[in-house]
């Protein structure tokens, strides 16, 4: 009976927001929604859309996301390389509302009360939920590197790992750098968001230097013992194409930055100076997950029931995407977060409809990396839920890599982006 009342409420809310045409205003946020989704990235936006779709538009969904548009992290390295613009990697959120009846609330969540099942917004009201889907992404732990917080706040040493204003700013720093300068990117210890991302970024900057500043260098200072993803493919392409541009140094863990002299300090090696610094600090689950007590693993990642993505720390809160403790060989990628969103959405729809949860959910992942403006390498994997071990495991014999960088996958990679943006947002 309660369920029916909820379903009717859901329908009424859905039609109200459709009629009002003002669904994006905070003041229009309903006091109660069946499903509230926090975070409109690849994970959260997909979950919001698929709860609507998989419930045949019966379950009402509120999506809370501070940004007005979705700027994709995948493909943002192409903006640094100069072959794509910010506009080409930006998608508006409107279709989630107009086409799928998701109530969009552009605001920040200040707190979650897991006992009362409510969230509180910075500008708006408190919203109740039956199920909360939390996809907060990662936060940069600037405090893990001395001096970085202030150097980032001043705009001098950027991360640009969350695509947006810093992407544009880093491109400007590269453009302003004189030829024969050095660009240094530092890589934190794994796990971090987007395993091949730093090496794709180094490739893109090298591609730009090769055209525009051929005497300049790209220095990769990696806290890990080797390249984290696709090592042989990256190394082969670099030695064939960027031999005199890219230099890779393993086991370089940054401990401090000196913004006055643009210098990096390491735990073991000599300090070094570069013209443009791109420092990626250690990462952890987004702050809202941390403050709600959901980051149960090393006070860093959120432990979940992998069959449903429900938090191990709070009932009816499902956590997905980069913030979760990754199952074996599961990358923190946009493609993976989109896959998480669908499994979590299906579990939430099943539970709210008194239906059995999928006994064997499935995840797939493909990470494409552009090593030039047109050539691409990929890594792919298939992850099957294992009921005995209560985790996702890669299927033996599945997945793999490109044989070499190629233009066909360059075409597919850009089409992948168009299709996953549509699958997530349109």
């Amino acid at each position, binding site marked *: 009976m309660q369920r029916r009342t909820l379903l009717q409420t859901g329908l009424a809310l859905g039609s109200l927001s459709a009629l009002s045409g003002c669904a994006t205003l905070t003041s229009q946020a309903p006091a109660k929604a069946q499903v509230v989704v926090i975070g409109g990235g690849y994970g959260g936006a997909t979950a919001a*859309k*698929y709860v609507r*779709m*998989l419930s045949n538009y019966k379950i009402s969904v509120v999506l809370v996301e501070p940004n007005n548009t979705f700027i994709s992290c995948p493909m943002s390295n192409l903006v640094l390389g100069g072959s794509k613009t910010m506009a080409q990697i930006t998608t508006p959120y409107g279709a989630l509302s107009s086409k799928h009846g998701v109530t969009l609330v552009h605001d920040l969540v200040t707190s979650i009360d897991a006992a009362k099942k409510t969230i509180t917004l910075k500008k708006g009201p408190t919203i109740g939920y039956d199920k909360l889907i939390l996809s907060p992404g990662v936060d940069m732990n600037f405090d893990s590197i001395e001096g970085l917080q202030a150097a980032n706040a001043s705009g001098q040493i950027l991360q640009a790992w969350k695509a947006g204003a810093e992407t544009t700013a880093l491109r400007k720093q590269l453009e302003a750098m004189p030829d024969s300068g050095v660009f240094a990117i530092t890589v934190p210890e794994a796990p971090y968001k987007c395993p091949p991302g730093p090496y794709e970024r180094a490739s893109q900057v090298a591609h730009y230097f090769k055209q525009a500043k051929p005497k300049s260098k790209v220095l990769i200072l990696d806290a890990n013992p080797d390249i984290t993803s696709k090592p042989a493919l990256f190394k082969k392409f670099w030695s064939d194409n960027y031999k005199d541009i890219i230099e890779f140094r393993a086991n370089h863990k940054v401990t401090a930055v000196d913004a006055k002299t643009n210098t990096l300090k390491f735990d073991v090696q000599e300090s070094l100076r570069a013209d443009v610094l791109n420092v990626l600090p250690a990462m952890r689950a987004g702050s809202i997950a941390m403050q709600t007590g959901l980051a149960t693993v090393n006070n860093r990642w959120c432990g979940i029931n992998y069959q449903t993505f429900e938090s191990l720390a709070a009932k009816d809160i499902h956590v997905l995407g980069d913030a979760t403790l990754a199952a074996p060989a599961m990358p923190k990628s946009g*493609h993976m977060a*989109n*896959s998480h969103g*669908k*499994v979590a*959405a*299906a579990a939430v*729809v*099943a539970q709210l*409809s*008194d*239906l*059995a949860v*999928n*006994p064997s*959910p*499935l*995840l*797939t992942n*493909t990470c494409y990396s552009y090593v030039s403006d047109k050539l691409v390498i*990929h890594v*792919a*994997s*298939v*992850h*099957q839920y294992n009921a005995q071990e209560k985790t996702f495991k*890669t*299927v033996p*014999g*599945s*997945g*793999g890599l*490109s044989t070499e960088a*190629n233009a*066909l*996958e360059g*075409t*597919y990679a850009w*089409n*992948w982006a*168009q*299709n*996953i943006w*549509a*699958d997530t947002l*349109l």
Partner: protein
Amino acid sequence: MPHPKFTQTVASALLLMSAWPVLAQDAAAALHQRADAATCANCHGSEGRTVPGSSVPSIAGLPRDYMVAQMKAFKDGSRPATVMHQLTKGLTDQQIESMADYFAALKR
């Protein structure tokens, strides 16, 4: 003798009671099939429909047997691919058939 309408009502109620778990099972199975098939959507578009001009093909409304044959050909390596041979090797024949059933039933 009970009122005929009463008998009918009880009979309907009994029928509903026995049918409910079956309906729920069917509804759950349909939900799981749709969610598993949605793993294709990252590249092949929501409900198997890609954006206009996509070089990754739409798969909604393709004939079921054609789709099963292609997926198995990727899996055994007889149809060359950039990624699909690696992804299909992660799927059982049953998962391949279930996905093909789902997309074949959709409009193009």
